[in-house]
């Protein structure tokens, strides 16, 4: 996710989400976009294609030891 977002990109994302926002609401989203982009960057690690997501919770014996 790029840290800056232009009006056209924001409009595309909002249209895809089915949201019809006021200019004021769009401006607010733009103010927090960089922070959200930083979060999205934080969860990306060099983990390779085999690293699975957490699928839910069956706790392993290792959890309980």
């Amino acid at each position, binding site marked *: *996710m790029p840290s800056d*977002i232009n009006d056209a990109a924001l409009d595309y*994302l*909002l249209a*895809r*989400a*089915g*949201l*019809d*926002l006021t200019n004021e*609401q769009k401006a*607010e*989203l733009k103010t*927090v*976009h960089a*922070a*959200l982009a*930083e*979060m*999205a960057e*934080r*969860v*990306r*690690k060099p*983990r390779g294609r085999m*690293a*699975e*997501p*957490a699928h*839910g*919770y069956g*706790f392993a014996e*290792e*959890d*309980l*030891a």
Partner: protein
Amino acid sequence: MSDTIPTIAEAARQIAAKELSPVELTRACLTRVHALDGELHAFVHVTEERALAEARGAERAIMAGGSSGPLHGIPIGLKDIVDTKGIPTTCGSKFLQDNIPDTDAACAEKLAAAGSVLIGKLTTHEFADGGPSFDLPAPPARNPWNTAHFTAGSSSGTGAAVAAGLILGGIGTDTGGSIRGPAALCGIAGIKPTYGLVSRAGVAPAAYSLDHIGPMAWTSEDCALMLQALAGHDPRDPASASRPLPNYTALLGGGIKGLKIGVIHHFHEVDHKVSEGTRRGIDAALATLRDLGAELREVQLSPLQDWAACGSLISITERAAAYEEWTRTRLGDFSERMRSRLMLGALVSGVDYVQAVRRRRELRAELQQAMKGLDVVLTATQPAEAAKIDEVPKWDLFDRPNFTMPFNVAGYPAISVCAGFGAGGLPVAIQLVGKPFQEPTLFRVADAFERATPFRGERPALVTARAAA
């Protein structure tokens, strides 16, 4: 008004011994509701007639056949995202002002089956998110220790009502800290149990894979008594765990000598520095635990910001999915704060979400590894004493990584207990975290700490002043 507010454990002993009438106990709670809730706004709906009828029923049953258990005749409240048959359940939202469910949520059903007395439905942030909001049908709850201050949320009414003795225990829900935050700022105990231990059936979702239901009460012992009634497999909840249930009070009073407690200092000293009062509370708590015989060890995890990013991305996306239909068609009917949170969903891609869930697996494995050889770990619950209610930042999600989300991400049980009082006489707290399904150990440590410290002896001045009047 009686100036003595018993704990659930104390009241249960007196009720079982027929020294305390459930009707008198319920009337005392209702008297406090009438006297204080005009300021606290802890309740959105008081079920007075039902409460008195249930209390009379409990009294008759106890006189005839004895108490059926520690919650028999005990006044409780339910967060207003918990479905209650025949009783309005609004989720704090304009959308559900006329909603009267035709069934009880699993947790409401279980507490009723245990003989508790329902005093009413408790204030929540809208659909358990955002807040405090001043543009909802009901005003936000206020902190009994100083009503100009915030309770934290989203289980805001439960925190305020327990602290002020309007109920002896209540239900909260916790997606990123919504039980433990209000417990901390209102000076009570609140546990987010292991994911899957308490059924979510009939409770409005905030974020499916992070949502937990749990008890809030004056003491950790009371939370243990409530959890005993609440825990257990429920096929109506797809995440419900199927495991034998332990006795949650079995280890209380056994002391903590030799227990190993890990301390995640970097969370509250480096990643997000806590207030001076909170820091003093944590340091004093560590000294107390050491004096009680626990061995303290240093624990290093990924930065708090990593846990917060992971949990927030999952939370934003799952919430946006849950409320997508209304977000698309009636966005303006949400509170301003909830609306802003829901709009964020448009900015998170499907790949962002899956990367967050992959990170979640890594972070959980990291906590699992860090807790090897330890019984519990400790960190802050909240960064500071309660802020003024009109000075709570809207985007604290981004500004201040919270201390509670890591354990929603991991699904591990975590309890907040009062660790004293800081600036302005407002409560500060510690958070203790256990291994999955090891709530008895968590209660053992929390209970030992509460008994070794004087903080359970002090109620908010507003409560004691009214009692004396």
